[in-house]
């Protein structure tokens, strides 16, 4: 085997040379990384465990138990990783990429090179310190992760960049330098951080903060102490002030936390188009990520405006592309995001650039409003939702617990306007339209989504009509596509108008089945 640091020769023109087809190993230093990670884990788990043991016996016993256990843990982790390293090898052939791995169960995975649609590079902080990265080669199949991807974990950054260039820029023999053709389509603006707190992340982090404090306190057996200390602190304040203090503290932590999270994810964000027709997103402060997306997989874009962002005029852009498999549930779907929350104008500009249109379809489209019957439905849903909260309170209040009666009244007074406001906003947000090659549909309140879908990317229509919709002449039309979520709906459009629209958008689908009396 060659040395781990020997840079591989992967040039397209040497593909036929036997040397580039030899089996290669992952980077040897993965063992060191694993040992370090094990050490980190040992420290993180060892302290609470040690504290617990010390609480029961003495500190000396705790050290005598925890330290050897930690050392064994680190050694075992390193040993397993060493075996894994020995058993793993891969090679890049002219037509395919092969990976052999597995300690007990050997597996040999083969990906055809012409089916590889994405080469994603991730470098967590620890790997970065060693100049290493993870590489994930993915095909554009809508299958589960296991079958359609191949992960190299880890290789050197230079090798990863080589792989990316060779595997994505096929057919362009001169693409070796992979210089961005159009340069950056968008780059990170520090001012965008201001949009980060306007999301559900803020209250979640605020709550999590209090939870973590209590949890840590419990590890050290100090929970009661922390609680009584903070109660003492708050007792001197009047009740409203105390509530306010807790709220302010939680919010402050949430705001700072969400901004930190945003910065970690999107620092040095850069969206660029490379000469071979690949969009590339690079971002990250501690963990750096590089995500590539072939333009021919793109079927449109989705302009996403969560309520908080919409209030301050921000929007993010997601790609609607085929073969973007959700990787793991904890990774969420942010690998399809082409632009983090940014001013709406910037979002429209980037959407236009990504789609190679002079003006973004999300901006040029004239969205048609939906019939007022759709508003009636939303208002009724809102009132039903309020009733679902208030009526049980009222019933219990009238029969058993009279105290609940004012609570029911309060809920009704507070919730009704909120629900009605959301319902009216939901109706206002409904819209659909055609512009150039794109079908645009918009809906949603808490997460307003404006999807611009390339018309030839639509591979089917589904129309649904409940009996309530039928009575009011409404219909929901859903365009199915191989890309993104698989289906995008136009909710509660007038039946005749909607069907005419569906035919105008993609004639050959519903067209032959329409009946005009």
């Amino acid at each position, binding site marked *: 085997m060659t040395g781990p640091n020997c840079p591989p020769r992967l040039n397209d023109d040497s593909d036929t040379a036997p040397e580039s087809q030899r089996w290669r190993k992952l980077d040897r230093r993965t063992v060191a990384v694993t040992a370090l990670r094990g050490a980190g884990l040992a420290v993180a788990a060892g302290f609470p465990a040690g504290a617990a043991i010390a609480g029961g016996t003495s500190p000396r016993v705790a050290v005598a138990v925890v330290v050897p256990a930690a050392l064994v843990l680190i050694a075992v982790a390193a040993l397993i990783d060493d075996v894994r390293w020995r058993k793993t090898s891969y090679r890049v052939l002219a037509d395919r990429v092969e990976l052999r791995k597995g300690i007990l169960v050997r597996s040999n995975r083969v990906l055809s090179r012409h089916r590889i649609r994405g080469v994603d590079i991730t470098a967590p902080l620890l790997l970065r310190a060693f100049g290493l990265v993870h590489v994930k080669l993915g095909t*554009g199949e*809508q299958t589960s992760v296991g079958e359609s991807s191949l992960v190299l974990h880890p290789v050197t950054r230079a090798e990863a960049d080589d792989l990316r260039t060779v595997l994505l820029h096929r057919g362009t023999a001169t693409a070796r330098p992979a210089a961005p053709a159009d340069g950056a389509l968008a780059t990170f603006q520090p001012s965008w951080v201001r949009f980060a707190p306007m999301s559900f992340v803020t209250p979640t982090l605020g709550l999590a903060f209090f939870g973590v404090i209590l949890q840590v306190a419990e590890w050290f057996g100090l929970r009661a102490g922390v609680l009584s200390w903070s109660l003492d602190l708050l007792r001197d304040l009047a009740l409203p002030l105390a509530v306010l203090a807790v709220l302010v503290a939680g919010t402050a932590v949430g705001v700072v936390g969400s901004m930190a999270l945003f910065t970690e994810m999107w620092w040095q964000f850069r969206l660029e188009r490379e000469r071979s027709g690949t969009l590339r997103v690079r971002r990250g402060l501690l963990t750096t990520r590089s995500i590539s997306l072939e333009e021919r997989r793109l079927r449109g874009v989705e302009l996403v405006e969560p309520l908080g962002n919409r209030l301050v005029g921000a929007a993010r852009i997601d790609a609607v592309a*085929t073969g973007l498999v959700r990787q793991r549930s904890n990774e969420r779907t942010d690998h399809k995001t082409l632009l983090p929350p940014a001013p709406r104008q910037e979002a429209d500009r980037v959407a236009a650039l990504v789609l190679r249109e002079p003006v973004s379809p999300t901006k040029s489209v004239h969205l048609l409003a939906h019939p007022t019957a759709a508003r009636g439905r939303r208002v009724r849903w809102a009132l039903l939702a309020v009733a679902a909260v208030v009526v049980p309170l009222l019933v219990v209040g009238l029969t058993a617990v009279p105290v609940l009666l004012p609570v029911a009244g309060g809920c009704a007074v507070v919730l009704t306007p909120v629900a009605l406001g959301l319902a009216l906003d939901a109706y206002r947000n409904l819209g659909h339209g055609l512009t150039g090659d794109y079908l645009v549909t918009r809906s949603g309140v808490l997460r307003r989504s404006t999807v611009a879908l390339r018309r030839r*990317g639509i*591979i*089917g*229509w*589904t*129309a*649904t*009509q*409940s*009996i309530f919709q*039928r009575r009011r*002449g409404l219909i929901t039309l*859903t365009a*199915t*596509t*191989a*890309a993104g*979520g*698989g*289906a995008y709906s136009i909710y509660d459009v*007038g*039946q*005749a*108008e909607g*069907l*005419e629209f569906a035919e105008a958008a993609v004639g*050959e*689908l*519903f067209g*032959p*089945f*329409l*009946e*005009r*009396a």
Partner: protein
Amino acid sequence: MGDTATVRLRPPRNRLDRRALRWWWTKSLVAVGVPIVASLLAAMVSPVGTWLYWVAGAVAVVGLPVALLLPLWWYRVHRWEITEDAVYTRTGFFWQEWRVAPMSRIQTVDTQRGPLEQLFGLATVTVTTASAKGAVTIPGLDHRLAAQVAEQLTRTTQATPGDAT
């Protein structure tokens, strides 16, 4: 809305096999019958179980008519059609649904036969497209017809180039 007010999707041409009715009746009678029988048995065994008779009665009064009538409705509503260019179906009663999958986008054609379907000589044809949500299902076909349909669809779609995305 003026003169376009009467645009609608015409029903697909073909009904399902009449045996689908028996298949659905069997399924819905099992769905309703099991809780009825279970609560009757429980009522007989348990000393305090008289209220379980009421449960069984209520389920029977509400469930049996539904179990008998719903398949009739389904049979009226469920329709399918295969043209040269597309597969077109209509399903559902409370939530009616029309689906179109064009031939050029069909990726796989499956036929399935559950135990009950085998009993009644029926089969279900499922046509999938590249969309995760675009599958079109035709249940309750005569199993020979289903095989024919699947065969015909497979031949047509194989003649279409491209990866159908």
